[in-house]
């Protein structure tokens, strides 16, 4: 569904991505793990078109989309749950999602009020992520956990084919972590998921396959069991966390 070939990205002399080749199948649930500075966020920024790669290729459903701009990739079905929520803070939760739902129809409808069907779809999504009845609360007035749930709803609003989840449980309490992990696990199986996450319990619950990123390269890839058994991985990453 989404793949990269020898993807490179340099900042000055620093190689954030030093040739990343990944292939995530349709409907697959892939986790990308690695220490801070491994290039995970840079990889996501390239996959969403927010950064152009220095070299290499990004393919989406077989099409070469390298260098496409973010809105073009979004229209082709790529969505992202940002690590730091990207919401419309003063707007009610409902409108946050509705702007996403309305994106497919486009903004050039200047004279009529948005159709009720858009608000209805937004309410349904809010319910889906556990925010039923919170639609009229401004995004900025929600709790941290609720804001993460809203961020997920906004990311889903355009009915993406590929969802990139950037540390979905960052800053959450154990209870909140459980709730959002359940939510993500219950998403439609046809949706391709790529999740960057530090919490290894969450990774092992969500992922079918894991890629380990280290210094801008994939140093290991396999099922959770295989990655757990990999000595190199244990040295550079898991050793510190799981021990």
């Amino acid at each position, binding site marked *: 569904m989404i793949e990269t070939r020898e993807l490179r990205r340099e900042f000055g002399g620093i190689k954030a991505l030093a040739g990343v080749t990944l292939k995530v199948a349709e409907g697959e649930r892939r986790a990308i793990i690695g220490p801070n500075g491994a290039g995970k966020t840079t990889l996501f920024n390239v996959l*969403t078109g*927010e950064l152009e790669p220095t070299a290499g290729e990004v393919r989406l459903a077989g099409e070469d989309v390298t260098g496409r*701009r*973010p*809105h073009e990739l*979004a*229209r082709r079905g790529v*969505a*992202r749950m*940002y690590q730091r929520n*990207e*919401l*419309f*803070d*003063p*707007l009610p939760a409902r*409108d946050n999602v*509705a*702007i*996403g739902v*309305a*994106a*497919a*129809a486009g*903004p*050039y*409808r*200047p*004279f*009529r*009020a*948005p159709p009720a069907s*858009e608000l209805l779809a937004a309410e349904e999504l809010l319910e889906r992520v556990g925010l039923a009845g919170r639609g009229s609360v401004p995004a900025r007035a929600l709790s941290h956990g609720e804001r993460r749930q809203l961020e997920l709803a*906004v990311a889903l*609003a*355009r009915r993406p084919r590929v969802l990139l989840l950037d540390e979905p449980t960052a800053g959450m309490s154990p209870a909140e972590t459980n709730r959002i992990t359940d939510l993500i696990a219950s998403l439609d199986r046809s949706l391709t998921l790529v999740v960057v996450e530090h919490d290894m319990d969450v990774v092992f619950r969500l992922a079918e396959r894991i890629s380990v990123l280290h210094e801008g390269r994939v140093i290991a890839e396999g099922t959770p069991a295989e990655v757990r058994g990999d000595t190199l991985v244990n040295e550079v990453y898991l050793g510190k966390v799981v021990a």
Partner: protein
Amino acid sequence: MPKSEQGAVRRALSRFALPAAALAVAALLVTFPIWSTPWESSRYATGILRDMLILAILALSLDLLVGSAGMPSLGHAAYFGAGAYAAAIAGQRLGNDDLLLGLGAAILVSALLALVIGTVAVRAAGIFFLMLTLAFAQMVFAIAFQAADITGGSNGLVVFLLVLLLAWRLRSSAYGRALVGLRENERRMRALGYDTTRLKLSAFVVAGAIAGVGGALQAYSIRFVSPNDVGVARSVEAFVSVLIGGVSTLLGPVVGAVVVLFIERVMPSYIAFSETVLGLVFIVFVLAARRGIVGLVRESYARVRA
């Protein structure tokens, strides 16, 4: 009163408060010739009211950029001036002083100018956007020339009400909501598939076209167009109107235009240093009341209801 009934009354109030206020203002404006007779002698008051309407149109169009989309343009008079010149020249060359013809010419020319300038300007953000719009407006100012007496009458009030209606529709439409999305989080808008550069450009062009309408009215009612209509002072006047009246409040720019011209044109007959007063009022609003007069009124109204 039972709670549910109270809620219904509140809903009815909030639903009809705005249209009622708009109607009241419109009624006041329409009956202006009657209640203004005490000072009619010099026709000075009529002139001031007309200028208020014109500045209000310019401010309304600017608020679409500043308020809704979060794009602080400091060169908005360029489109106003372009509209004024277009209307004037079209009327002169075609020997026809039909207001509709002037408005058409103004909208077309202003929109085109905004399209050209906007194509460059919307690629910048924040202070750079502000400086770019100012720089372009200064270029337009530099090439503006004196166009002598243009004849024609106008029905400014009708045009003003149409612009107000348009601004209200835009705000509550999917388009207006997308502009607010742009102001609040451009990155999220892009990630949702909105072409934000194009969206900004569209807002720039629409705002430019509406400013052109104001310019056409100016050309028709004053029968004289000068480079000052394109100048930075005019841009600042519009900007101050938006800020004092209330950013992104629909009626704010109208209220602001009335206040600004009242201070600039009426007060000097009564007190000295009215320019200083305008400056002070401006500073007070920037520091203490970011949502302007209309924002203040709405906040106190909400507090009374609560």
